[in-house]
């Protein structure tokens, strides 16, 4: 498992589509080969039909119904769920706003910190394995446990964060209890896990041939110029991939918010809906209000949003993502 594969990580599908063999075979043999191939992938094929394609269609159909799971059957209501969502459901718009705000701040910050750490480690400082382990550790922790830990840290009275702030003369806010500070608190918490991105960037950095830097040094390039013209261009596929995954991840953000807010006085997504992420709103509709039809519609809108965002990032990537071996005009 070579680290070099990272350069194809951004579009793995394009990497090696053909299996590693080329010899042509007589017809009967190749038909037999096909049969074996289908046989081996059949667990996934079956699972795809039963757990992906089927449910996808079903949820599309359900999204056109009113369906209370405790009171079947579903009633056909056409596009009413979608109309309600866009015209008369302030929670929908609010949850979008919360999710996008978080994404716009947390993703670039996480990217920057993760990349910066990887860059520092790649300067051949002593003890790279040690630093790597230490920074990566928060990323392997269960979300429930790290959320509980941060809940204690953010406690306005007994938490260590406000204690540290008081040492420098700042009267800390109420964090998760405050409408204005709950979202920033979640962003701070997410930065604790930047080690996850760091590992991937570090592997990418290590795969850049040192000869490139050496020849740049001979040409008189300074440190920043090397970063700007060698490191960043070669790292864009990795950065790009993390960006896409980051966007998708934000729309699925759930556990931390659930753990931190479901038992607080403000309720799930509180205080005053300050942390009502898209996925929290969906959960509420599906499993609290039991509006399975409406929740399906929310899921499909989520799907379309993620799809459009991913396509946008892919489209724009031509302008800023540089793949090795590509000729640039």
């Amino acid at each position: 498992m070579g680290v070099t594969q990272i350069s194809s990580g951004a579009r793995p599908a394009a990497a090696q589509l053909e299996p590693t063999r080329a010899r042509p075979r007589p017809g009967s043999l190749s038909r037999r080969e096909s049969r074996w191939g289908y046989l081996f992938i059949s667990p996934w094929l079956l699972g795809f039909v039963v757990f992906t394609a089927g449910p996808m269609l079903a949820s599309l159909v359900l999204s056109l119904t009113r369906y209370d799971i405790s009171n079947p059957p579903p009633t056909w209501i056409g596009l009413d769920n979608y109309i309600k969502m866009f015209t008369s459901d302030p929670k929908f718009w609010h949850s979008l706003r919360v999710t996008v705000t978080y994404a716009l701040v947390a993703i670039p910050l996480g990217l920057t910190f993760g990349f910066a750490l990887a860059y520092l480690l790649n300067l051949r400082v002593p003890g790279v394995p040690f630093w790597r382990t230490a920074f990566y550790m928060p990323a392997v922790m269960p979300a429930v446990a790290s959320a509980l830990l941060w809940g204690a840290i953010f406690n306005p009275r007994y938490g260590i964060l406000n204690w540290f702030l008081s040492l420098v003369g700042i009267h800390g806010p109420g964090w998760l209890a405050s409408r204005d500070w709950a979202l920033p608190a979640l962003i701070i918490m997410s930065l604790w896990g930047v080690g996850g991105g760091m590992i991937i960037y570090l592997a990418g950095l290590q795969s850049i041939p040192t000869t490139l830097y050496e020849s740049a040094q001979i040409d008189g390039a300074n440190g920043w110029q090397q970063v700007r013209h060698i490191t960043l261009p070669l790292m864009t596929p990795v950065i790009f991939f993390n960006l896409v995954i980051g966007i998708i991840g934000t729309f699925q953000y759930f556990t931390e918010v659930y753990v931190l807010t479901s038992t607080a006085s403000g309720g799930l997504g509180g205080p005053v809906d300050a942390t009502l992420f898209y996925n929290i709103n969906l959960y509420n509709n599906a499993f609290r209000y039991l509006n399975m039809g409406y929740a399906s519609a929310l899921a499909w809108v989520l799907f379309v949003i993620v799809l459009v965002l991913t396509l946008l990032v892919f489209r724009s990537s031509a302008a800023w993502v540089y793949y090795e071996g590509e000729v640039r005009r």
Partner: protein
Amino acid sequence: MRLGIKARSQLTRGCALVVLTVGFIVVMIPLVWMASSALKTKEAANTMPPQWIPKEQVKVNVDGKDLFLYDIPVEGVVRRLALVSKDGPTGTFVNPDNPTEQYQLPVASGVRAKVVRFHWDNFAAAMKTVPFGRYLVNTLTIVLFGTIGTVASCTLVAYGFARFRAPGMSVLFLLLLSTIMLPPQVTLIPTFIIFRQLGWYDTLLPLIVPAFFANAWDVFLLRQFFMTLPIELDDAARIDGCGPWGILWHVIIPQSWPALITVTIFTVLYAWNDFYAPLIYLQSQEHWTVALGLQSFNALYSNQGNLLMAASVLMVLPPILIFFFAQRLFIQGVVISGIKG
């Protein structure tokens, strides 16, 4: 003055080390805080300024009475004495090792002595407060069967994609990869309804059975690995009379331990850490997993910060230990699959 290239790179490295150390401290503080809170008394967990090393006031038994210990100056030397009785501002202190040695001292001049004491019993208390053993058995059941299912099914599927040509195979592989981008919510509700119809709601089955149908991440990781194995070995095995199963069993799997272990580690961690699926499918407490149990612990005993942190430490330890012992494989796996972990 211009520095030479060597001096300059040493300077850069020095600065990098300083920044890394600061980052290290910032990352470690929450973990230290967690460990320290887990070993405190309930009162000490809620004190300001925070106690980094759990300390508490202690009593000693002198002549059948429990007395507080004080650190108090006697003729310029601070001694550790027990307070027997108070008479206004003056107290009667004795040497706990020699109770006949008595002093009359102003109580205000001393402070109650604190000694470092780790409450290891918090872990036992946390496990007794909730049926932790039950949660553990449930979680391990999911981990065990989920891992068997994932490794077995993903190996077969990855082998199929890596070694067999068939019409539509590359389209199917693209389809598989595209499911990575599919938000699970899109399939969530019908899947939930199906499992409910099957009578699997509030059982562990919805958390185990889907694992037997492979997933895109692990198939991708394994396929990438299988494709690096030389095809000549397959051919040699075929000449020796191996069929497709024989090649998988005798050629592919023996060479793929690193990748298989990586997939195993990821699956174990994922199942251990998962919260969303257990939350949706498991209702009664006897079926809960550790993750659900920890969350409910928080809901019920949020005033017992020390026990909550002790329970959290218990949940955090397995992933951290696995990570430490299988670090190299783990990191390679994260790098190959791009993000997972």
